[in-house]
């Protein structure tokens, strides 16, 4: 029935268009002339003005977007040591883009308006100018050279992990559709592991090598705790399909690839508690909670449960399509002081004690 109705609606829309076209054509005096479907002076004029209108539309939508969403806390407020480098590069790039965009869109639409066709006017025969072309080849070259150089420095700094800083080694382990973290334990060294060693009956879910002495004190958790100020080096594994460990607040992301170990390192600089206390985050959370309260009212009216209020936490998200529940593959990250971290890690079971004997 709905299908039939939809088809009927579609047919009516088409008939309406047909009728409108007919009426419009009848109002046009020249509709019998040949080539009346080619733009005439009137069309050129109307569309020329519309070009200016469209230019204004582009500027307005740009301004609205920047004012409303230009300062979402995720774009500022990075929580890692290299975060500000990425953010400043981002800002430089954005400024360049903004300038180029504003100018070129202006020229494009303004010319389209200014030089709109009129009968009897003749265009300028202007086919070439090597000087001009050299200019707009060289300017992008210079601008891009600057961006490339700064980009490469930033990239190299981020990706080169300095092992001498004694980073905290943590394995991020991905599976459909959850994350696990494995800490190296007291020796800060991860035991060997392979999916072929997975033994569900013994609760060895990550396939850690039971005979490896380094593995004995490993700690497997479902929450990621990081001490603030200490470099962390993540070793990433996946047991089934590609996943991507995305930690947007820390400007960090790396794919987890079955069959190989990938890595990414950063130093968290802001604890969860501090981040919750920043004015931007307070605003954001208050705003989100307002939205959730509104939504809850609706839900309750429909006899459903209300939403829980939101408190901020850092998150690890999966950012590579990985199957049905890809949209819900997350792990909480808690950045805390060294003391809090030490206290937490003491409460966690070492690998050798977590195995089930049967």
């Amino acid at each position: 029935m709905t299908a039939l109705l939809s088809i009927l609606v579609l047919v009516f829309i088409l008939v309406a268009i047909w009728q409108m076209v007919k009426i419009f054509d009848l109002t046009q005096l020249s509709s019998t002339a040949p080539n009346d479907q080619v733009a005439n002076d009137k069309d050129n004029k109307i569309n020329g003005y519309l070009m200016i209108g469209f230019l204004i539309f582009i500027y307005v939508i740009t301004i609205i977007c920047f004012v409303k969403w230009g300062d979402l806390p995720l774009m500022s407020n990075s929580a890692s040591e290299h975060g500000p480098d990425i953010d400043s590069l981002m800002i430089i790039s954005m400024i360049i883009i903004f300038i180029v965009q504003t100018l070129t869109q202006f020229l494009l639409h303004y010319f389209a308006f200014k030089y709109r066709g009129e009968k009897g006017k003749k265009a300028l025969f202007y086919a070439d100018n090597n000087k001009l072309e050299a200019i707009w080849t060289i300017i992008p070259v210079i601008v891009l050279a600057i961006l490339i150089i700064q980009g490469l420095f930033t990239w190299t700094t981020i990706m080169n992990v300095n092992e001498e800083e004694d980073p905290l080694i943590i394995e991020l382990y991905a599976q459909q559709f959850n994350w696990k973290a494995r800490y190296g334990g007291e020796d800060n060294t991860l035991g060997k592991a392979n999916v072929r060693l997975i033994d569900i009956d013994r609760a060895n879910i990550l396939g850690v090598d039971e005979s490896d002495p380094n593995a004995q004190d490993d700690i497997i958790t479902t929450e990621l705790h990081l001490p603030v100020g200490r470099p962390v080096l993540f070793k990433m594994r996946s047991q089934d399909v590609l996943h991507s460990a995305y930690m947007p607040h820390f400007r960090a992301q790396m794919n987890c690839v079955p069959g190989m170990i990938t890595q990414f390192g950063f130093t968290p600089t802001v604890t969860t508690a501090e981040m919750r206390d920043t004015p931007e985050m307070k605003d954001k959370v208050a705003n989100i909670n307002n939205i959730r309260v509104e939504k809850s009212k609706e839900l309750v009216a429909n006899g459903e449960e209300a939403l829980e209020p939101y408190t901020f936490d850092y998150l690890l998200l999966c950012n590579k399509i990985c199957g049905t529940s890809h949209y819900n593959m997350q792990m909480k990250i808690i950045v805390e002081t060294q003391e809090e971290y030490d206290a937490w890690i003491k409460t966690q079971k070492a690998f050798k004690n977590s195995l089930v004997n049967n």
Partner: protein
Amino acid sequence: MSAHADTHDAHDDHHHKETFITKYIFSQDHKMIAKQYLITGTIMGVIGVIMSLMMRMQIAWPEEPNVIFQTLLGKWAPEGVMDADIYLALVTIHGTIMVFFVLTAGLSGTFSNLLIPLQIGARDMASGFLNMVSYWLFFISSVIMVLSFFVEAGPAAAGWTIYPPLSALPMAQGGSGAGMTMWLVAMAIFIASSLLGSLNYVVTVINLRTKGMSMTRLPLTIWAFFVTAIIGIISFPVLLSAALLLIMDRSFGTSFFLSDIFIQGEVLHYQGGSPVLFEHLFWFLGHPEVYIVLLPALGITSEIIATNSRKPIFGYRAMIASILAIAFLSTIVWGHHMFISGMNPFLGSVFTFTTLLIAIPSAVKAFNYITTLWKGNLQMNPAMLFSIGLVSTFITGGLTGIILGDSALDINVHDTYFVVAHFHLVMGISALYGMFAGIYHWFPKMYGRMLNKNLGYIHFWVTAICAYGVFFPMHFIGMAGLPRRYYTNSNFPLFDDLQDVNVVITVFALVGGVFQLVFLYNLFSSIFFGKKATQNPWKSNTMEWTTPVEHVHGNWPGEIPSVHRWAYDYSKPGQDEDWVSQIVPLKEGEEELQH
């Protein structure tokens, strides 16, 4: 082949009898094949757009019952609530259809077929038979791709990039069973079709140019189609090999892309392969593919902007050089899709460098278009509007490329909606505008009738506003960290404040989508009832407008005219009219421009 060449030579004697089947179905005439591509591409486009609208509705109003879902998706939307698996399938098939079936086959197939012989002065393609085979392979592959929606476990759902292991293991995802097999078969056939087409284009452009049509007198459309075909020949076979290796992994137990996998309680035997290898193979096509989609659109735009500005295209040689530069660079930048794939970070540096270089020829093109408008006498036909729109979205979308191409910045925006906004503007919308522009401009040549211009204006302005309304705000939710390909964002309260943006985007998308009906109406009604076209309605210089309005087999009755000048003698001083067809000899004392 030789028999066919004979019919060309002997086209004058009208013994060549055509039945309905040889004329409309198994036609070897390039003009008919172009129409077949156009109609098939348009139908695929409608399917692809409907899919995107369903995705947008799901994102804006997640998990809410929707009659449209219930009607169109059936068992995949129990009681009208979309299933998470089918969402991913929509993502996948929408991407595949739009990139390959609409913007590669629909755009290149239509206009390369129509324009290459007509604009270079040839009777037909080098091989009409291969051309026909190419279309029918494309048709078969379209049918298989669409039919994959009717497979028990659903169509392919691993994203259009079909990264293994997700795409390789039926236990990882429902769509990776028979659905993925159909996807791979459809794509293998598609690639065969595309290669036959491309080879034909290249051979035709090299061998069948009429007397006087030197390479530097070719219209820029032909240059774009020619270079596009070459990129296709270089890169499509690599995707074919990736698909074949993936089929081996899926069906014959090899381990090209798979290693160390534990899934659903068991260890699989695969060892030693790497998904990263697949990513390399995929993107070795995948990135040039962007330019396979975009270059024809830019070529069409060059031609239309020059014609409607009544001015020569500015910097003809620079335009050719930038097409060549883009084509060359496009084959050495694929790694920018893989900065965080786990490949060596040093490679990331190399690919950042090559990627950002592409901005240079792109900037040259954009500035040359703008300069072509300067001091012109712009005829605001719908085709011209879409061409100007293309330059606008090409700039807006292209500029964010310098963020995504920069490996350090890519870390944080990779696979977020920022990427979605970027590529939809720079290749999706731009190429679509190129296709629309081409249709409005060459419709009179294809069907001998005119499209209605007022419907064209409505179509353009609503589409232009909606395109920006959809994709401009999308950058910002991407920068706020929202990952793409999430069925719903409601599990992340963190993103609750982005929901209103998503609703705005969806509203723009729905309005824009519905207004495509205006175009469809215009297209299909004008085929039969449009105003009769004159021979050269836009007063264009290129050769296709010297053929009669009524199509003849072999394009020109009698001799093929020879060419005496380049395609852009618009408003040339000393001429009576503001255009001079390429086939008009130089006047006495007139100098050909040393362009």
